């Protein structure tokens, strides 16, 4: 039987763990609200951009002079996987679910004879993939110093990707991130960035636009922006998902710590009573012996 002092120390340590997880949960809840707000605020732009691009792309993708970003390089050999994860851990399955999806995709591509390159955004995904896919990593984007993700970060990442594409380093780019569904569930998602794909909403009738300067020029101008917007949206979704995942993970941890404290307290009280009973028996039997 563990002695009383050990139990007491153990209870105290679980109590302070509970305080920490509780605090982290509250911080995550506050951050989640902010992350959700910025994801919400970015939505009108992304939606409009997507609608316009879908419109333009459906007209231009068949044309011979379609921009390479839309039509692709004509090959399907080298794949770039962009793995967007968090900079911090302690957020449940958030990072590993993305890593798992990316790893499965990498394995699938490798087995069909394609070349895989990996670009990681966020430290945690890099750490998880480094062991088995470390030799395939080409670049890493560090956002650990960034407090709030802005459009400039996304457009920086996007322009890096575009310049790599223009240098012929890869043919297809896919980004992996967690889509925010609710606090309890985040969906690991893959989205193909290059060649660009835009889905036209059903039933949305596109008015016939006059394009200035020309349709091709407008498309060429907008494609890199659309790419930045897609990256930005992915990063925002990821940010909200991370906080959501952390919040529910910390909520669980707090509850587990509470359960543990209850159990330990019962053991502690029992041992204390047993000790008292023992002492009484000793005293009584001592008195009887006299």
């Amino acid at each position, binding site marked *: 039987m563990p002695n009383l002092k050990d139990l007491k120390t153990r209870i105290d340590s679980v109590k302070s763990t509970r305080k920490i997880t509780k605090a982290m949960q509250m911080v995550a809840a506050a951050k989640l609200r902010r992350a959700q707000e*910025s994801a919400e*605020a*970015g939505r*009108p*732009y*992304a939606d*409009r*951009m997507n609608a*316009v691009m879908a419109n*333009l792309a459906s007209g231009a993708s068949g044309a011979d002079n379609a921009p390479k970003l839309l039509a692709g390089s004509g090959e399907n050999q080298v794949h770039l996987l962009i793995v967007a994860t968090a900079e911090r851990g302690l957020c449940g399955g958030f990072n590993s679910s993305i890593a798992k999806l990316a790893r499965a995709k990498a394995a699938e591509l490798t087995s069909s004879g394609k070349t895989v390159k990996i670009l990681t955004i966020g430290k945690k995904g890099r750490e998880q993939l480094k062991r088995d896919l470390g030799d395939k990593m080409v670049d890493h984007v560090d956002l650990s110093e960034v407090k709030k993700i*802005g*459009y400039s970060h*996304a*457009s920086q990442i996007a322009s890096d990707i575009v310049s790599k594409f223009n240098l012929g380093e890869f043919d297809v780019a896919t980004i992996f991130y967690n889509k925010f569904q609710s606090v309890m569930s985040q969906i690991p998602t893959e989205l193909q960035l290059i060649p660009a794909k835009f889905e036209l909403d059903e039933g949305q009738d596109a*008015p*016939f*636009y*006059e*394009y*200035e*300067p020309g349709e091709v*020029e*407008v498309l060429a*101008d*907008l494609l890199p*922006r659309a790419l*930045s*917007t897609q990256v*930005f949206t992915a990063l925002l979704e990821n940010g909200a998902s991370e906080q959501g995942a952390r919040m529910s993970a910390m909520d669980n941890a707090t509850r587990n710590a509470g359960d543990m404290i209850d159990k330990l307290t019962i053991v502690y009280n029992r041992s204390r009573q047993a000790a008292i009973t023992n002492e009484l028996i000793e005293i009584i039997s001592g008195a009887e012996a006299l």
Partner: protein
Amino acid sequence: MATIQFDLVSPERKLASLEASEIQIPGSDGDFTAMAEHAPVLTTLKPGLLSVKVGNDLMEYIVTGGFVEISGSNASVLAEEALPRNEVDTSVIEGLIEKATIALEDVTAENKDDAEKRLADTKALLSLI
């Protein structure tokens, strides 16, 4: 008088949503003014001054790029950066000029003209404020 629904959105937030009577837009092929029932147009923007007339009020924004989508009763401006004019001073513009100058330095030959034009347009902003 007929009005046109004007939305100004940046990637990070919605900046304005107004019922405007007319909108002056710095299109990359030249400035133009849109009023209600304008023909559907999609055009890119050059750095310049976007002014929106709401009743008797005039709101002005400095935009650095993006595009405008006009369809009948709607005009959506999707700008990468848009600042209300009264918040912009010379130092802000100088920052933008610096950015454009840097962009010009590491641009590929085929995009050089565009980058030069961009720089010139950005410099022209100085005369607007």
